[in-house]
């Protein structure tokens, strides 16, 4: 492989029926609905903006404290605070479309009926690039009801969304790493009609306050994110890519730089999401595009898609 100039690298990305200019997106829950980050860079330059999971009804979320800094990461227990689907469709989604962003709308339901209703209302809005089904948020009242922890429940939620989403709008299922076999859940949701996967959501964690001698977070437990979880995410992408070749995967978990993004591509992800590092650097998603382009160029990848799954090849360093 010979090095290329970054400008020569083709970053266009195809994820099922979604065609994106580049493989870099925001991660759900780390970019609200794009407006705030637009102060730091043009959100239309991203491959897609993945919006914070929207529920059917407005939701107040959990009490504070809602976050704790941890080594190279953080715990959050927001509890899906949000405006509800009606306000989202009236205000947030039109803003993204007016600003030429490619919205991928993350939806979260507390029942199959809610997932279906959200799928209908979002899926029928012109301009939505894809749906992301959040079946794996750890910050719900009943941990037992996290759909993604059980292959059967996960499949039911995804089937409900797929059935009520128009053809041509891809449905991606976001999975939890807090399972014995993520491959088993991945197989179940693909069989249920998902067009691709988002790997991974946060890991469930806890921090105990040494002053109060009690759990720090208002919700007790929270979701661990940031660079600390990146190896777990890369492992999940690798395992699922190996077991389900050809399934579009969006990799997410601790991406801070273009080099991190490349690692996910090599493991088998066709696209990546930048999340927690936005809190450290609000320009990070835009920066990662340029860095990824440079990382691909220096390794002689003429197309981002050429790097996807490259690490699975048996001859390291083989020519592309």
């Amino acid at each position, binding site marked *: 492989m010979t090095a290329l100039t970054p400008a020569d690298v083709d970053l266009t990305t195809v994820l099922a029926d979604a065609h994106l200019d580049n493989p870099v997106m925001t991660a759900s829950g780390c970019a609200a609905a794009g407006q705030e980050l637009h102060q730091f860079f043009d959100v239309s330059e991203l491959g897609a903006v993945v919006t914070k999971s929207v529920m059917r009804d407005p939701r107040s979320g959990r009490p504070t404290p809602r976050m704790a800094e941890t080594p190279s990461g953080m715990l959050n227990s927001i509890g899906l605070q949000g405006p509800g689907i009606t306000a989202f469709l009236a205000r947030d989604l039109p803003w993204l479309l007016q600003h030429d962003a490619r919205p991928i709308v993350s939806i979260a339901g507390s029942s199959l009926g809610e997932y279906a209703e959200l799928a209908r209302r979002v899926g029928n809005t012109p301009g939505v690039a894809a749906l992301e089904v959040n079946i794996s948020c750890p910050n719900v009242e009943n941990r037992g009801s996290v759909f993604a922890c059980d292959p059967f429940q996960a499949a039911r939620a995804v089937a409900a969304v797929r059935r009520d989403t128009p053809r041509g709008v891809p449905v991606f299922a976001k999975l939890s790493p807090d399972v014995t076999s993520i491959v088993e859940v991945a197989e179940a949701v693909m069989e249920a009609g998902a067009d691709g996967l988002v790997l991974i959501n946060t890991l469930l964690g806890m921090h105990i306050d040494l002053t109060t001698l009690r759990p720090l977070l208002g919700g007790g437990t929270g979701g661990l994110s940031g660079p600390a979880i990146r190896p777990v995410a890369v492992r999940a992408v690798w395992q699922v890519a190996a077991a389900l070749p050809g399934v579009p995967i969006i990799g997410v978990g601790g991406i801070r730089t273009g080099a991190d993004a490349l690692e996910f591509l090599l493991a088998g992800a066709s696209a990546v999401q930048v999340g927690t590092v936005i809190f450290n*650097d609000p320009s990070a998603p835009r920066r990662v595009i340029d860095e990824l382009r440079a990382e691909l160029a220096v390794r002689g990848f003429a197309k981002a898609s050429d790097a996807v799954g490259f690490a699975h090849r048996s001859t390291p360093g083989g020519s592309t």
Partner: protein
Amino acid sequence: MTRGTAVSRRRTTAQAARGPLQVDGEVFSVKRVGDYFHLTIVADGIAERTRPGNFVALSVGDHTSANLLRRAFSIYRVKPAGIYGGTVEVIVAAHGPGTSWLASRHRHDRVNVVGPLGRPFALPKQPVACALVGGGYGSAPLFGLAEKLRERSCTAHMVLGASTEARLFGALEAKRAASSVTVTTVDGSVGIKGVVTDPLPTLLARHDIDVVYSCGPMGMLRAVTSVATQHGAWSQTAVEEAMACGVGVCMTCVLPVVGDDNITRMVRSCVEGPVFAGDKVRWDAIGTVPAGTYGTPVSSTRP
């Protein structure tokens, strides 16, 4: 250039420049002030956009730092670009790994700055009587505020309080900036022995105060609001909530605030605050989601 033209040029820039910037700042100086550290960072463009009550979010460490979350600080002072680049100044209490890192910077070190952020203090349109109450280094944004108030022919009576003298910030500067200064310390090491709300009722009555501005710990803000409300004064509080991003995307810094429609919402203190009308904050319910809050499940909103 005469002072007059400099001021008018600055106004023009301020009108044109809106929204926060992200600037790779350079430390100009770190000075010890009592128990605190006074950090001056060269960060072009921040000054021209800053109004009293705005804050900055500083990153900790470099681009590989394990401390990902930005630390939020009220802006103490700004200087627009002149012969030197524009600067922003904050007061840091080094009580954790992030603030200790910031306090141990040296001249020419890099610190990434995002700002100015948040809603500033609302300024009266009439020349009214104002009290400015600061707890500890919470006094930092009040000096710029006092200057703005006096430009509008308002009076600015300052009350500064702390546990002890080393934790007072700006008592000397207050003598220059304010119409009058009252100091309280819990241990009596300087000023009146007690807390800021001890002399406040007398001060509000004596100067017939219309607006009470405050910045400091939540408990103090609650008590100051209560005194202001009893006196019939309008209350503006700059809150301290733990933030992860400072720019409005993480949803961690929420607190229950009553809207004009009388509905309580969990609102972000970084973008809808940090300055709130004191009587709109549900001080008693901070750390909870009170029953009836917008978006609570119907089952928990029963009276």
